[in-house]
């Protein structure tokens, strides 16, 4: 079973729902080691995405939907996460081109391009306590799952689980990028808000693939 436009828009809707649901939690994480706006930023962005989603032409490809997310996030989120996540979706859209159906390899290409987009703009390395620390294990786990011959649902499940672990693993780290880097040792013990939100987005991707009941519906 490959994943097409229905999966993509479902992923996007679930993303909006999960970001809205976790808005307060993300704000709190960002208040602790940043400036307290991360949940608000993403919620504003995905609310705008939702509003535009119905305008997608019926024959849109996954890449078209991802590009819509990219440009909308870039023009509504602001802050650090706006350009970073926006670039992630933009590069992801580029990676899948006009393909209508994505198989495991295409999903790995999508995730890899997204992660690389964040690195391109933000220059963060793994272990810097940023959203990269959710994306990179997700990319690796997805690639391993494909190598193991897993199906698309399992590939995204592996990515989501790895992203969740990656987000959790940011807790003991000292930050080297973003606002948390100003804190030095005092960032230790706090989860990076961007890693957390990225793990939520990747979980939404897996849930959409698995057809899990959606919180937003």
């Amino acid at each position, binding site marked *: 079973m490959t994943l097409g436009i229905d999966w993509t828009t479902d992923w996007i809707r679930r993303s909006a729902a999960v970001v809205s649901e976790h808005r307060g939690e993300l704000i709190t994480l960002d208040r602790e080691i940043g400036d307290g*706006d991360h949940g*608000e930023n993403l919620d504003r962005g995905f609310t705008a995405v939702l509003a535009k989603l119905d305008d997608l032409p019926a024959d849109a490809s996954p890449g078209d939907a991802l590009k819509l997310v990219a440009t909308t996030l870039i023009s509504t989120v602001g802050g650090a996460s706006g350009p970073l996540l926006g670039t992630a979706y933009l590069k992801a859209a580029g990676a899948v081109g006009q393909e209508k159906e994505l198989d495991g390899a295409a999903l790995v290409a999508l995730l890899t391009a997204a992660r690389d987009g964040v690195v391109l703009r933000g220059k963060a390395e793994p272990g810097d306590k940023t959203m990269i620390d959710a994306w990179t294990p997700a990319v690796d786990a997805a690639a391993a799952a494909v190598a193991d011959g897993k199906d698309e649902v399992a590939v995204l499940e592996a990515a989501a689980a790895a992203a969740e672990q990656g987000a959790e693993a940011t807790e003991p780290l000292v930050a080297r990028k973003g*606002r948390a880097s*100003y804190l030095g040792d005092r960032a230790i013990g706090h989860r990076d808000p961007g890693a957390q939100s990225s793990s939520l987005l990747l979980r939404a991707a897996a849930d959409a693939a698995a057809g899990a009941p959606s919180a937003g519906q």
Partner: protein
Amino acid sequence: MKKLINDPKNVVDEAVAGFEAAHGDIVTVSHDPIYIARKDAPVAGKVAIVSGGGSGHEPLHGGFVGYGMLDAAVPGPVFTSPTPDPILAATKAVDSGAGVLHIVKNYTGDVLNFETAADLAAADGVEVRTVVIDDDVAVKDSLYTAGRRGVAGTVLVEKIAGAAAERGDDLDAVAAVAEKVNGQVRTMGVALTPCVVPHAGEPSFTLADDEIEIGIGIHGEPGRERIKLAPADEIVDRLLKPVLEDLPFASGDKVLLLVNGMGGTPQVELYVVFRHAAEVLAGKGIEVTRSLVGNYVTSLEMQGVSISVLKLDDELTELWDAPVQTAALRWGR
């Protein structure tokens, strides 16, 4: 959360509308996308200067739009960098053909969003230079941080670069003056109380009744270290030491001393701080030839202060003294 606001989502829009209503003699306001421009922009032949960033630091930046300072300011949501769209729109609106300088405080979000806007403006044929402000000595500028933050020194850069643009300097020259000011100003701040971001509804951090936060940023983000409340003179000593050592400033230097309130600090306290800071500088043979005291780069209702020292020479002094007519800084006209 106690605030004179309506819906937290509308704070910036409503404040900008109020700013427009109060200062229509100096500015015009675009509401969608949102930016504040000098009333007579674009000014023929003049390099334009655009700055911006998250809201909540007022009067920065909107209060500094006008003759002799900024041509446009782009306010983002509270403490959140604006997106590229309004930056691009403002940049194009104020460009007279002489090019545009972006003055950007060094935060990942501000840098990335201005970068995208600059790229898009360049694609539209607008010449853009960017100067990134990073005057905050509280943060080590190293591979292990996002680099020094832009804080209160920003107002000095905007004033002086604005004067250079007003006297007719070309884009490279205006950018060079801005870089020079950024290179010669150092700042460090302290918070006594946190601030409350409207959409968050809770204090940005918590401080015990006898604790203060040294090395605070301007977004309610925690600072470098937390110490016990101390007499003002001790706190001033503690802020000034890294400021003076960093450049370093030396005996014989002439400087501008800026004591900047974080938004909720009573003015008496700013002057108590100024008094001792001036005393310390005098003791080191550093001459305060220009002064600025007040709320210029704030963090909503935060109580606290930052101290900036800018090394002056004849050129910078002349540009500082040049006329300016904005809502928040005005002299000479």
